[in-house]
């Protein structure tokens, strides 16, 4: 555990670029904080209609995902230079380096999701058009937590395997497959509207369902991702 804690701290320092853990956390928390501030400004100036709040929610969500990509890049920035050798001399095994990195990001995303929950709770009560404001807030925060965790789980083995720039290209190419698959899916003789509605109804009928399913999904995806990352990193010459 000590070694994993050391790695978490080291990754925070790498991400912040200045050797200070709290700076890394602050950078990652900045997006929901900015969202809360902007929401406050919008409310004070009377520009807080539903469209404006929806646009703000979309912008803040996109910024959060962008920051996650930046976080991954920041944590692997040493893989592009001789600084990667620091990983070879520190008293942290490669396995613990991988565990620590996943733990660091999950913690950050968790903290950020809490920030998003606060932002969402205050920014909008109609975004999901639900009856229960608390439920909508939990679903929104969970959705972002799930999305960011999934993106990280897909990206990380690539970054352990390839140079950062190549890994990013492959990652973006994989993301590019999503609309292509959606396009192909739309051509299939399936009533997607009914299909998605039934899934959304199933997930939102009780709050415990999406929460448990979401956490189980994250756990399963992270497990697979960690196994892949460990395998790739164990073979890497540093």
């Amino acid at each position, binding site marked *: 555990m000590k070694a994993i804690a050391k790695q978490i701290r080291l990754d925070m320092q790498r991400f912040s670029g200045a050797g200070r853990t709290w700076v890394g956390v602050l950078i990652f928390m900045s997006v929901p904080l900015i969202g809360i501030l902007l929401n406050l400004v919008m409310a004070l100036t009377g520009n807080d209609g539903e469209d404006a709040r929806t646009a703000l929610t979309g912008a803040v969500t996109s910024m959060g995902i962008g920051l996650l990509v930046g976080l991954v890049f920041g944590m692997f920035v040493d893989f592009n230079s*001789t*600084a990667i050798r620091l990983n070879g*001399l*520190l*008293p942290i095994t490669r396995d613990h380096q991988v565990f620590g990195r996943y733990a660091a990001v999950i913690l950050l995303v968790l903290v950020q999701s809490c920030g998003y929950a606060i932002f969402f709770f205050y920014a909008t009560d109609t975004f999901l058009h639900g009856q229960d404001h608390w439920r909508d807030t939990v679903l929104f925060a969970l959705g972002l937590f799930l999305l960011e965790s999934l993106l990280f789980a897909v990206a990380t083995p690539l970054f352990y395997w390839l140079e950062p720039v190549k890994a990013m290209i492959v990652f973006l190419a994989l993301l590019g497959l999503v609309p292509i698959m959606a396009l192909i899916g739309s051509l299939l003789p399936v009533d997607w509207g009914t299909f998605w509605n039934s899934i959304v109804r199933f997930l939102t009928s009780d709050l415990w369902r999406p929460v448990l399913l979401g956490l189980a999904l994250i756990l399963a995806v992270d497990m697979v991702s960690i196994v892949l990352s460990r395998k790739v990193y164990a073979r890497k010459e540093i």
Partner: protein
Amino acid sequence: MCASPPMTTSVEGADYALRVSDLGKSYVKADGTGFRLQQVTMDLPMGYIMGLIGPNGAGKSTLIRLLLNMTRRDSGEISILGRDPLNQEEEVKADLGVVFDSIYFLETWKVKAVEPVMAPMYPSWNSDRYQDYLRRFGLQENRKIGKLSRGMQMKLMLAVALSHDARLLILDEPTSGLDVLARDELMDILLDYIGDGRHSVLFSTHITADLERVADFVTYINRGSVFYTGPKDELMEAFQIVRGGPDDLAREQMPHLMGLQRSATGFEALVPTEHLKDFLASAFPAAVEPSEDRYLVERADFDNIIRLTAGSPAAADRNKEVES
């Protein structure tokens, strides 16, 4: 690949800082050619300095990377401070100080970012000692690491390595960017460091003058194999340089030499001390005693040994002969 059996000398009853036996590693380089580090065996007793020498590409850095688990070994055993670095990696690395030939911190960091990163990694980190070294080396905390000169970057790595009471220092070409004064200072630090008999140093270098001053042991790697490992003085006494005119080398003398370099003005041969008499006796006409007129015989230094065993075809032939 050529490989002669390593000349080894063991130190009986000693505690070892480092023991390597039959270590092997093969890989394909970026240019597509293969490289093989084979059957590397060496021992560094506690409290001594060992120099790792050899020409560029001989396998020195590969060996150091293998010691640090930065690359996976194909075969062999490594014991560092009595522990297996594969199974007890964290304990082993907590006791290691490492200096590479180039900086291992992000160049965008400032010097002052290093201590907050490194101190939590080592339970025995001594902040006062680290600050002392920064002052002693003239390292300014507000400077970016990437803006430091090669020598100052090396000093920063050295300050880190010396600030957590590492029992074994592993230095990969630490002197290559340093001027004479800085090299001299580093050698003083290393001698001081091993003074209590609990600390040891392994350092690779191609500036062999440094070794002649401080090293107790030497491991010479040539073309992926250990050519010699043991006390420095034994290696230096094991070979003689014989110089002569262009027509002074007879075919009968060739089996007695280890390396040869010819030029228009004569030849230079590396001859094992134990073969020197036979070498001279095989001359035509025989020259039982070295003669100033005909041969000049002197003790070989590291540079001569490396130069005449690494590059010359005669050394390769000789090695093949020994191999067969």
